């Protein structure tokens, strides 16, 4: 039992590290994160300079063959092994580099195109996606279809070789800066729920696409509502067969669960430091038994997730398939984030209410945590997945199974 690289892994790590050292600035400590070069105002311009920086970094990586490592070289990747991809991620995280923006395209849209697009389309769309030149979003959830994703109602009608799309999507991350999107629609309302879906990709600048930001409880606006009014999509941009959209969606969702990892925000280190500094009844909070007990629980969770990840990486390194253990990651980290944020504010007592340098990260995490517990599979959906797909327990009885979609009861708010 060891944590050591094999000879090949060590060699690859050195190569990665050398390139990164020559092209990026090393972090001085773990929390030393990249900040956009010109953060002029809080939303629009702040985001656009962050976007520019991220695009520049991605293009630089692409230029030296370090983008989308595991993709085939023909599509802009490196044909790297899963372990090499892990090593890249470990090393890149030691540097102050911009992130975000590309995960949905490269992590979800890319694999779907790889499986379902024509060779010509792959050659056209995948390299710019890898380079970060074109950004993609995912148009799945709707006001009436969240956890029950197959309940979507956005309508697709075929006339000749052109589809017309009408409806509304919601929770679309990055729709406002995306060039393309993957979308699942309903092409047959009289077929059972899972049978009448059809999957496409489209140009987000198509006439009839309207993007409206959703302001979240954090005050930020990372998500959007997207409205479709008589939007035209050529049939050549259909992915999978007509009516097979659910199957195609599952490919995407599988990749989404892999892409949504640890929740970012306050973690053990922050609450541990706070408990050492903070006074509690005339003594350091950390000397209080109830505080120590909570700290111990969170440390065990953090450590448990860390070594669960190590077990998975080890499986990759040994050339075997990682087990299903990683399915616990988001549920544990999102809840831990919420509890730590809440307790941190508790420790700071009434002063926690004011927003300042010390409180901001705890406040932000407390407001952000509910969304993380919901996005990419709610706690409840994830528990179902663990029970059904990992432990082999039976699915719930579905009253809407095999019923034509237009006969399924809906609540008034849909």
């Amino acid at each position, binding site marked *: 039992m060891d944590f050591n690289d094999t000879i090949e892994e060590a060699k690859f790590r050195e190569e990665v590290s050398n390139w990164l050292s020559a092209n990026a600035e090393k972090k001085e400590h773990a929390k030393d994160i990249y900040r956009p070069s010109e953060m002029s105002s809080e939303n629009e311009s702040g985001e656009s300079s962050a976007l520019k920086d991220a695009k520049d970094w991605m293009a630089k990586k692409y230029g030296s063959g370090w983008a989308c490592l595991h993709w085939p070289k023909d599509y802009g990747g490196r044909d790297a092994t899963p372990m090499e991809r892990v090593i890249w991620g470990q090393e890149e995280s030691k540097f102050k580099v911009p992130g975000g923006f590309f995960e949905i395209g490269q992590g979800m849209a890319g694999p779907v195109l790889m499986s379902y697009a024509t060779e010509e389309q792959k050659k056209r769309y995948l390299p710019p996606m890898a380079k970060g030149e074109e950004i993609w979003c995912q148009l799945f959830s709707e006001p009436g279809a969240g956890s029950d994703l197959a309940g979507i109602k956005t309508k697709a009608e075929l006339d000749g070789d052109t589809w017309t799309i009408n409806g509304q999507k919601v929770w679309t991350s990055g729709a406002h800066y995306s060039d393309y999107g993957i979308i699942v629609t309903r092409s047959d309302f009289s077929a059972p729920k899972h049978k009448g879906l059809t999957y496409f990709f489209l140009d987000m600048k198509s006439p009839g696409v309207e993007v409206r930001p959703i302001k979240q409880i954090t005050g930020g606006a990372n998500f959007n509502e997207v409205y479709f009014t008589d939007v035209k999509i050529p049939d050549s941009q259909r992915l999978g067969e007509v009516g097979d959209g659910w199957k195609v969606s599952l490919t995407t969702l599988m990749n989404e669960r892999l892409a949504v990892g640890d929740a970012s925000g306050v973690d053990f280190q922050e609450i*541990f430091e706070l408990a050492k500094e903070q006074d509690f009844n005339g003594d350091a909070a950390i000397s209080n038994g109830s505080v120590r007990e909570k*700290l111990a629980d969170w440390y065990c969770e953090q450590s448990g997730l860390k070594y669960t990840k190590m*077990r998975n990486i*080890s499986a990759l*390194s040994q050339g075997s398939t990682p087990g299903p253990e990683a399915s*616990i990651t988001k549920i544990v980290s999102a809840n831990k984030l919420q509890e730590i944020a809440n307790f941190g504010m508790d420790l700071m007592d009434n002063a926690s209410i004011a927003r300042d340098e010390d409180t901001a990260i705890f406040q932000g995490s407390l407001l952000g945590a509910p969304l993380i517990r919901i996005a990419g599979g709610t706690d409840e959906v994830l528990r*179902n997945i663990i*029970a059904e797909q990992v432990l*082999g*327990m039976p699915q719930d009885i579905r009253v809407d199974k095999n019923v034509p979609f237009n006969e399924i009861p809906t609540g008034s708010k849909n």
Partner: protein
Amino acid sequence: MNFNFSEDQLLMKEEVKKLLDKENSVKRNRNVLESDEKFDKELWGQLVQMGLTATTIPEEYGGIGMGFLELCVIAEELGRGIAPVPFSSSVYLATTAILNTSNEELKKDYLPKLASGDIIGTLAHSEKTTFPSESGISVSCKSGKISGKKIAVPDGDIANFAIVSAKTDNDKIGLFLVDLSSKEVEINSLETFDPSRSHADITFNNAEAKELSNDAWENIEKLLNQSAVLFAFEQVGGAEAAMNQAKEYAMGRYAFGRAIASFQAIKHKVADMYISLQLARSNCYYGAWALSNDAPELPTAAATARVSATKAFYECSKENIQTHGGMGATWEFDCHLFYRRARLLSSNIGSQGIWKDKLITSLEKSNSPS
């Protein structure tokens, strides 16, 4: 990178599992629980014959010279089978204590007999209802003779000798080996919460002691950390068995016209058991790495493994009963055997509060918790 047990170690794990399955270790647990027997001598004999008591003992002392990693996989299987044997006392604790000492004479005298299973040892440490602190030990050792009382010593009425913590002439805490058959030792068997594992109060009246160390508080801490990893593996084995019982029962039990395993209330319960178990297992792996490398991270790794494994076994064993409904709370069903064992293992080397406190203390000392 290979953060896993080797193929040989996993093979050994499988062999131990096969033996315990074949011998119906859970049924044997019940037999001991319901009878006046203190442990299952036949099963113990088979474990000895398989060489398991000799695992970590070097060949020069009659052992087979393997390491702690092998002991981890054995512990997990003993936990899965809730085996009614004094393995944790004799192997995790007494054997490791003697292996840790520099007293060559003791090693030569005791290790071969521990390896061959001719003798059984234990650790006698607790004295009051709180876990002993350095200043809380009142059993004393004066001029090589031990006096005082140790309470609820695991396997205290089975073991041939005990490793005893005691205050020395110069007010340090030392570790001593005492022959329990000596007439200066009084042993009182106890009725226990989990009668599949015997416990006894032991009173020493000027009993002759052999010295492992006369300044041993750090050694005691180390011994507890080493054994905490092994206890944690045993707890993980038990927790997984309890989770699987809950799942199997829910798949076969029908109510409201369907398997209760199809209800989210039950699925989410079992998913929570799985989460708790995976966190504990991953922490145990790290504990195993620290233990087998005698790494400076051992105090943190051991406490982390111990705390999360204690939590996992408690949660899995109690929610297993809940999943079974009324039948889970009957004497007839096996659920309570796991529930009892979970509690016993949580108490044996210091309770949850103690280990959580140790964990934070260790993080404060290391000053680099991540």
